[in-house]
């Protein structure tokens, strides 16, 4: 499951007609303490009027002559990052949510950023898994290759028990800093869970295996601030798009790939090998 716009949108919207006056829009905004009004014409969404539009227009004007049009919107199934990308692209503070041509909600930048912050790990300064699911869906949509490297630090529980959680956190921070440097710019890194990291790549299996080896080497060869040997195991999935095993529900597909890679990393650990490549494909949940 990935957090979507529908879970954070405001649903009780006050709208205004395009033939109303800017002065009336100003009054409605002031009375309701809101910063924008979606503009409707014959039940159809035609634009949005914001406080900025009101300030910069003559109060006698029609809303139609002061509004921002066409309206920028997302679908309710869009991820938080898709919404953020749109807000950044159009430099807007509010984004409408439209489903099958009907206005159903609105999200503000403040609310969106608050929600996105929940998907960011403060210790490692890395995004959590929702972010790579979003980027993975983008790769699949654009027809690119997708593969996952799931990295799990070996015996991390022992480090926590022997050195304490403060030093455990320090190791996690150092590993994540290392990965940030080593992961290529066309890949996406996240902290998946406690001592687990995931890397989304647009590479075929062979290139993905090479990268995983480089990352594992970097982790094991690094000199950590507490003198301890750290190694990690990795699982790899995907990188064989030509086999055409994707379901079409891209979120499910990426989640399945992550799951496969995670199981492969467990298998690597169990078999005391650094790397296992998952061969199967878990059927979609739906």
């Amino acid at each position, binding site marked *: 499951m990935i957090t979507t716009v529908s879970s954070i949108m405001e649903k009780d919207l006050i709208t205004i007609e*395009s033939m109303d006056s800017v002065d009336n829009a100003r009054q409605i905004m002031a009375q309701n303490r809101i910063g924008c009004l979606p503009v409707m014409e014959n039940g159809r969404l035609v634009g949005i009027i914001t406080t900025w539009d009101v300030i*910069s*227009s*003559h109060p*006698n*004007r*029609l809303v*139609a*002559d*002061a509004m921002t049009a066409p309206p920028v919107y997302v679908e309710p199934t869009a991820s938080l990052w898709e919404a953020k990308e749109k807000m950044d692209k159009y430099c807007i503070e509010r984004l409408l949510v439209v489903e099958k041509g009907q206005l159903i909600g609105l999200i503000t930048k403040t609310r969106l950023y608050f929600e996105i912050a929940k998907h960011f790990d403060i210790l490692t300064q890395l995004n959590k898994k929702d972010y790579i699911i979003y980027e993975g869906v983008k790769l699949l949509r654009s027809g690119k290759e997708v593969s996952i490297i799931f990295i799990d630090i070996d015996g991390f529980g022992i480090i926590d028990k022997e050195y304490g959680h403060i030093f455990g956190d320090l190791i996690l921070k150092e590993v994540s800093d290392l990965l940030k440097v080593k992961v290529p710019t066309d890949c996406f890194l996240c902290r998946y869970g406690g001592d687990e990291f995931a890397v989304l790549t647009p590479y075929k299996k062979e290139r993905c295996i090479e990268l995983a080896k480089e990352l594992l080497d970097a982790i094991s060869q690094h000199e950590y601030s507490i003198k301890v040997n750290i190694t990690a195991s990795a699982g790899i999935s995907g990188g064989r798009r030509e086999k055409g095993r994707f379901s079409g529900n891209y979120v499910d597909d990426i989640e399945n790939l992550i799951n496969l890679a995670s199981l492969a990393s467990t298998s690597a650990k169990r078999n005391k090998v650094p790397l296992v490549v998952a061969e199967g494909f878990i059927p979609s949940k739906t």
Partner: protein
Amino acid sequence: MADSSVSSTKVEITLRLSEFEMPPMQDALIIGRKAPIGFEAARRMVDILSPNQYEVVKIQHPTIEAVVIRKALMQMVARDRLISLILEEGGKVANEATILKVQLSIVLCVSKSVDL
């Protein structure tokens, strides 16, 4: 003791009657970006007051948002030529907040020589 001062207030009313021009604009209007009416209001106004007689054109200009032109004029001079002429002259005096009424007279001069 009675108050001897008397005061009164009078209102003087003057009426000035004149004919309301129909349509209220003449040959063209230049509408500023922050004028009390914009493109959409102007379009609806001319559609209601003088259907099919005027065209409202949205303009890419720092201070002018739209120009309303009588269609009949565009039968005599090409649309783009007319708009650029109006913007060239009107742009010198128009500002963002104004709506300028433009009177435009086109005189066609034809001179031909024929064989006797």
